[in-house]
């Protein structure tokens, strides 16, 4: 069987001894034009997978930085249709893979069937739904499978071995490992128990593992390097942009 798009990316990076770089930015942030400029810039700077945030009014898994950015995006008039319409136009200019990340309700209202179809047409390879745990995903996953869209699961420090094993039966694309017991937002230090838990996840999953939530600098991931394949950063990118700094400076440290 041929490798899926994600496995190919992670394998290429691995051969080079590198981790996949996966920035997250809420769609339409800081404004509708700037957003696409940033996406193109991050793509050119070497981002491997870009997670486009689908803003939601009540993002319970997010800390203050992403929540505020999402609210601004909503005020800018962004919705799922805008994201997909624009992607259809901009996708050809991007080398990276695109993943949508958001919460159930906007996806549910759009309709999963239509969403999966439109995502495929727009060249999106995966979807991450922050408030869709395994149990609630079972009915929905085949819809995305049918259109070659990977439904990417989140697991965390408190996900038991038994639950990780259940997830392993369904997981596709890659595994998103949440590195803190908390919401999104850059932390100075990652938890002690992260290493052990990542080791366990490595044993259980056949898929690449990316970590996210709380990451802001390469030094943080030194100790866990051998157990991960990709790194997601959201809040730290947004904070960098908010300070009016050049996005190149942020990427320099990682590439």
């Amino acid at each position: 069987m041929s490798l899926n798009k994600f496995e190919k990316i992670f394998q290429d990076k691995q051969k080079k001894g590198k981790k996949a770089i996966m920035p997250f930015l809420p769609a339409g942030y800081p404004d509708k034009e700037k957003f696409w400029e940033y996406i193109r810039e991050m793509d050119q700077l070497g981002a491997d997978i870009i997670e486009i945030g689908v803003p939601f009014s009540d993002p319970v898994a997010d800390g203050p930085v992403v929540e505020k950015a999402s609210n601004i995006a909503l005020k800018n008039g962004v919705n799922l249709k805008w994201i997909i319409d624009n992607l259809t136009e901009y996708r050809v200019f991007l080398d990276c893979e695109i993943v949508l990340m958001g919460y159930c309700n906007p996806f549910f209202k759009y309709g999963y069937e239509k969403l999966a179809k439109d995502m495929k047409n727009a060249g999106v390879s995966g979807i991450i739904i922050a408030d869709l745990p395994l149990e609630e995903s079972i009915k929905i996953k085949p819809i995305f499978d049918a259109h070659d869209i990977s439904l990417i699961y989140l697991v965390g420090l408190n996900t038991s071995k038994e639950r990780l094993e259940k997830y392993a039966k369904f997981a596709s694309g890659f595994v998103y490992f949440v590195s803190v017991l908390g919401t999104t937002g850059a932390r100075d230090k990652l938890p002690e128990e992260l290493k052990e838990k990542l080791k366990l996840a490595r044993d259980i999953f056949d898929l690449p593992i990316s970590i996210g939530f709380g990451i802001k600098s390469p030094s943080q991931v030194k100790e866990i390097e051998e157990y991960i394949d990709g790194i997601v950063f959201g809040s730290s990118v947004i904070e960098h942009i908010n300070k009016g700094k050049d996005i190149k400076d942020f990427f320099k440290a990682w590439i």
Partner: protein
Amino acid sequence: MKKAYFGEFGGQFVPELLMPPLIELEEAYEQIVPSEDFQREFNSILKDYVGRPTPLTFCKNLSSELGFNLWLKREDLAHSGAHKINNTIGQALLTKYMGKKRLVAETGAGQHGVATATAAALLGLECIVFMGAKDVERQAPNVKRMELLGAEVRPVYSSTQTLKDAINEALRYWISHQRDTHYCLGSVVGPHPFPALVRDFQSVIGKEAKEQFLEKTNRLPDHVIACVGGGSNAMGIFYEFLEHREVKLTGVEAAGEGTPNCYHSATLNKGTLGILHGTKTYLLQTEDGQILPSHSVAPGLDYPGVGPEHAYLKETKRAEYVCVTDEQALSAFKVLCKKEGIIPALESSHALSFALNLKGKVKENYHVIVNLSGRGDKDLDIVFKHLK
């Protein structure tokens, strides 16, 4: 029925990080709550501390005017002034049995926050209450009350700065403090097992009402009416009557000002299906699935979602759901004060208003129970402002 669901409504739409504490709570709900020890302790607190059973009052003056029989289930006489305490005592006690030391709660107007702080003080638990910054300002006396009871009130500044944002923040807090903290959710909303757990703790209302009514009249009532925001007092009184299909059940939602395009809280009447705070139910939302602000003169009804079991009762037509405007509720409020000497909560005044409107539509031997879910002392400022 599928586990965690009421028909197609309900579920557990939460981040994976919240699944372990929800599974832990499910086990506690299934094993600890029905146990003899727990039930004995729970019932003894309800009796000796909360003051249960609350009376079932026959409204003599109003009944003769209305031409049918109006009864009130007096949750306003429960300790701390509303039905909310039934649930918080249950969850606080469960927290102790689960070996956790802290309660976190959300509150809108402050009633559930006060009830949680009360239960925490009684049972020696720490208590943190998240409250929208706008509500902190609007409901200053309740903030003081919670603080007197030993709780820490944390204002929430995100988004609309009201109840829904307080719930978001409480859920976030729970994610990072799940090991020693229980989330004491205040209504029959949220992910499974909360809608069932809160309903069960509130079901004492309907059990008592049925028994009291049977004792006084030797029959069942014709009609039971309750207001619905999230819907905990309504589920509490409806649940015991669900199997008695001859008893009509009406939930009354808040229509706000009742003008076209006004903000309201009539989720079951005017909302659409969606997913919020872990549950699939009717919501006030845009076509894109963004949650809209709600409004009611009654702060406790001001929520853009509704308990999934109510959505199911509506779907299966076991209960009907109607709306009452701010003005109609205020007018019912005044009627009860003057005619029966009872100052009702503005939430309960919605249910009462619907009952008063049955005048001329039902027969003389018709018996109606209204769940008087709380007392109105907390609402006097709002009422005086509107009376001007």
